[in-house]
């Protein structure tokens, strides 16, 4: 029963609250820019507006049209797998690896859609997206697996409960930091948003999308952002372990806000790196995460 309720909450959270989170982040950004900024509900209006726009497809093929739907669905599915308040809605149906697969599906879909759109900017964006995926996904996988190693189980519930009992270990902290560093490219924020770089390649894979399809893609991006940040806070910042579920969920929401704001602040004080520079950077982050994993294996 509890997991059904949490599942519904998670869906709503990922679906309905995602644009609100984006609106709040736009306020954070505006504050750093010394300006007033849009209302926090602006993103809802943007999505509503995109719904009425003509769907003037830049390309006319199935992959191009299907991509937004698949992308959207994959994020919603992921929302059902992420823990919330220590409860994993679909915990019985899959483990950490399934979650990782589902999370990777979104970006891969975008890549396919970008390839299908036929714009040279999209091609450049796709190639950058794939390069980023190649170096960032291992970081996430290794950081999550480290907890699984400690918990001796791949089940999500076991993984998130482990540090609560044992307290934070060295490997746990290292993996937490690595995961946090990987969040930035995963939610497509400067300095690692090369694939969507507006100033260089006009939002890359999205360049040819318009109207409803663009709305769905954008919405799934916002949802993915909230899903990943929730995953991070639940996994690596599970404290305080409150007894009451509603209180604990409220606490998680608060933590999500703080982490998201931090991500946004980092995005605002960095210039965008070049793809080769960020690759080089993430190779070292990978080594860092790997060391965390090693430590977990030897039990530290």
């Amino acid at each position, binding site marked *: 029963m509890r997991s059904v309720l949490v599942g519904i909450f998670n869906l709503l959270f990922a679906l309905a609250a995602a644009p609100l989170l984006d609106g709040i982040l736009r306020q954070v950004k505006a504050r*750093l820019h010394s300006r007033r900024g849009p209302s926090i509900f602006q993103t809802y209006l943007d999505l509503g507006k995109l719904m009425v726009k003509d769907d003037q497809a830049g390309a006319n093929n199935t992959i191009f049209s299907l991509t937004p739907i698949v992308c959207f669905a994959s994020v919603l599915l992921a929302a059902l797998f992420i823990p919330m308040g220590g409860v994993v809605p679909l915990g019985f149906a899959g483990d950490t690896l399934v979650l990782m697969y589902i999370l990777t599906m979104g970006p891969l879909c975008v890549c396919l859609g970008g390839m299908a759109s036929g714009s040279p900017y999209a091609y450049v964006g796709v190639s950058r997206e794939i390069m980023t995926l190649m170096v960032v996904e291992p970081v996430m996988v290794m950081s999550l697996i480290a907890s699984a190693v400690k918990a001796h189980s791949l089940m999500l519930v076991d993984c998130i409960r482990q540090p609560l009992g044992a307290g934070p270990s060295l490997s746990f902290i290292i993996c937490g930091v690595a995961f946090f560093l990987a969040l930035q490219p995963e939610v497509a924020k400067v300095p690692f948003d090369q694939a969507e770089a507006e100033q260089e390649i006009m939002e890359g894979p999205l360049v040819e999308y318009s109207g409803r399809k663009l709305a769905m893609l954008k919405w799934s991006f916002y949802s993915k952002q909230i899903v990943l940040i929730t995953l991070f806070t639940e996994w690596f910042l599970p404290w305080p372990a409150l007894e009451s579920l509603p209180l604990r969920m409220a606490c998680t929401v608060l933590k999500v806000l703080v982490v998201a704001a931090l991500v946004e602040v980092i995005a605002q004080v960095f210039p965008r790196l070049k793809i080769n520079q960020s690759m080089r950077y993430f190779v070292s982050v990978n080594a860092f995460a790997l060391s965390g994993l090693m430590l977990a294996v030897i039990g530290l």
Partner: protein
Amino acid sequence: MISKIKEALICLRAPRVTFRYPLEPMPAPARFRGRPTIDGAKCIGCGACAAVCPPRLIDIHGEGTTRTVELNFSRCTYCARCQEVCPVGAMQCTTDFETATNDRANYSVKVELAAVACQSCGTPFITQRMQQKLMAEFQPAWMQQRNELPEWLSLCQSCRVEKTGMTMGRNIKNG
């Protein structure tokens, strides 16, 4: 890393500076060169403004007994040269900049002035006000007393040329 914190501090130290405009009015400074206007009551139709206007948007033309000063300031460059050369202060650049609209016809300014006919051929050639102004400035006192118009104010250019030619011819004939 320190430079990042510095940058963040620069950002945070500056308050939110956004104006509330257009929800609150914000007048432009006094010297601002905004929407050009013609005060129809003052304009004498001399055309000085048309001669200096860089985008050449002031047009002066005449039909029948009217002289029309017409402009559509859609392509105005707001240089205020017209204001500078206007001898009567009819041409003014206001400080108004809120001129956005959906119809270019809203930018049209039209002043129709009465023209005076040439005493010889009857063609209208100069605006009434222009004639009065020139009279006030250049008419010799004795003519003013006799309420007489100097020739160059009562004849159109072609008639004047003709008349001058005739006078000269007569003078030559008379030695």
